[in-house]
């Protein structure tokens, strides 16, 4: 099975994305604590956890929007630092919770903006984008289910779900090997959320894109993930295929108010982590 194949390639060298012993804290507050994680090429990995668990910070460390206090991030075997950050970023698409589109600009402009790192400055300033990107913007708009009339329309004229479709298309503009999706459906209603995740899932499968996606809805994570990494209070409390992430685990990730029975809960979950899935 495909899923089993993806999960079996856990050797460190095969991982497209690797985080090693990441620590991060704001003042006294630990955000992330000793996180190590490897993501193989082509995997759709969901980072699951309640609000404030640190999953968004974890995601943003991959493209340098957040910096770890200690620990190393590798992308494609290359250690991320200030010298190669711009180049690495151009190979990583990102989808945001609040879409982060320029609502006054047209859909087309927003899509083309997704190609900016690879477009010469003078071309960008004159809005004279290469034909390659203009064609790709059209193809992607069609692929995410927008129509030709909507290309010229302002983003503010679209519904939330349609706006996130634009966000997804924009993320694919430079054919990235990795897509980071930071709570891509948190601002959408449940039905649209499912449609949007289905779109992201199928598009990334079709292009072989690795996806790291934070979510807080367990049902959606189970439906679309190849692998679930559950985070609670800055620590990984579950890492495995969705089939193993049953209600007991879900309750343990979300159930108790933060901090109350944390040591017990994590201890139990550590045991759970070693469980192998049939």
């Amino acid at each position: 099975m495909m899923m089993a194949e993806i999960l079996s390639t856990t050797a460190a060298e095969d991982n497209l994305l690797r985080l090693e012993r990441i620590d991060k804290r704001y003042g006294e507050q630990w955000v992330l604590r000793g996180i190590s994680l490897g993501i193989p090429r082509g995997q759709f990995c969901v980072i699951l956890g309640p609000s404030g668990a640190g999953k968004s910070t974890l995601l943003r460390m991959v493209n340098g929007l957040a910096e770890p206090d200690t620990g190393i991030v590798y992308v494609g075997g290359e250690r991320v630092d200030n010298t190669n950050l711009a180049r690495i970023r151009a190979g990583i698409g990102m989808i945001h919770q609040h879409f982060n589109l320029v609502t006054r600009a047209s859909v087309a402009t927003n899509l083309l903006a997704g190609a900016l790192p690879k477009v010469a400055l003078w071309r960008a300033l004159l809005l004279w984008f290469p034909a390659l990107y203009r064609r790709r913007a059209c193809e992607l708009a069609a692929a995410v289910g927008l129509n030709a009339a909507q290309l010229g329309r302002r983003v503010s004229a679209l519904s939330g779900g349609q706006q996130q479709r634009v966000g997804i298309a924009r993320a694919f503009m430079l054919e990235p090997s990795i897509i980071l999706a930071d709570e891509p459906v948190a601002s959408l209603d449940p039905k649209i959320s499912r449609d949007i995740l289905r779109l992201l899932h199928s598009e990334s499968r079709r292009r072989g894109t690795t996806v790291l996606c934070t979510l807080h809805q367990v049902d959606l994570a189970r439906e679309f993930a190849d692998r679930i990494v559950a985070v609670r209070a800055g620590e990984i409390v579950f890492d495995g295929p969705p089939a193993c992430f049953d209600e007991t685990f879900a309750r343990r990730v979300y159930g108790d108010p933060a901090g109350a029975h944390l040591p017990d809960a994590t201890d139990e979950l550590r045991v759970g982590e070693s469980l192998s899935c049939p």
Partner: protein
Amino acid sequence: MSMITSDGTTSDGLAVHCENPERQPDSNPAEAWRIDPPYTLRSVALVLVVFALLWLTGSRVQMDRLAALTGEGFAVALGLRESSQVSAGAARIAGELFPMQISERREVARIENFDRNHLPWFSHIETEQTRERRLNPTTLVMEETTQEREYLVEPLGYLGHVALKMVETLEIALWGTLLAMLLSVPLAFCSARNYTPNRAIYFAARSLVSFFRAVPELVSALFLVVLYGFGPIAGVAALALHAAGFLGKFYGEDIENADNGPQEALRAIGAGRIKVLCFAVLPQVFPQYIAYTFYVLDRNVRMATVIGLVGAGGIGQELKGRYDMYNYGHVATILLAIFITVMLLDQLAARMRRRFL
């Protein structure tokens, strides 16, 4: 977000997360609640202090005399009084301003290259006979002589002249605004905290912006006339510097306050500063930019009429000249022209704003 969380998870029965831990039963019964009146004795005292201060400053700037003199003026207007300083002054001004000067009358002898066969449109020649007593040098007797002088009369000549000057004024305002926009772009970029290259440049840009705004157009025009001579150059430069200070400040603050989301989205994929500015900030701040720029254009037209007073071109220069020569009829025409222009511009600006914003 939290609502979706609890909805989404509870519908599957997976989480027990719907109870808000912060929602506790009220320990405070409703009988103990109260709604305070909107002001207290202290605020009343504060208002009284403010009134006392206003009274003090008001008497220093002679507000009491303002009221008294204006009241007398109204009393005269209503026929309750014989005379007052204000109404006498108003009557004198009105008497001198009207009738307004509309025609232009020039002595033919003083017009260079005068061609009798090709008169300007709608103009005619008037002949005027004047009697003068003169000493005849041969007889040494005072004689009465008749002299004939010809005048070229253009019935709407002065109006045309004022219109041309007004056009020049508008051109000064337009170019002052255009140069200000150009100047303010780098100033705004450097004085926006999140885009400035470094702190030194930030402070330099900030100081320059404040300096430009601190120097009024009339004052900088005085100096610029020394630098560039009388005429429109000094006017354009004076307007541009002041407006650049204004636009630099407001453009810069808008850049700082623009929604960070779209900017982060472009930074996240590795787009450079200038690209982020052009694609994530400019579209957001564009409507405000248009509004500020129209305001500056509007203000510059009004200021362009004033800075002519110090010789920086435009209709102000004409106004000053006529005023100094006691040609109050001409002054009235100029004032009317300025009023009409400002009013038309207001209409135009309102229409443009409706269209673009």
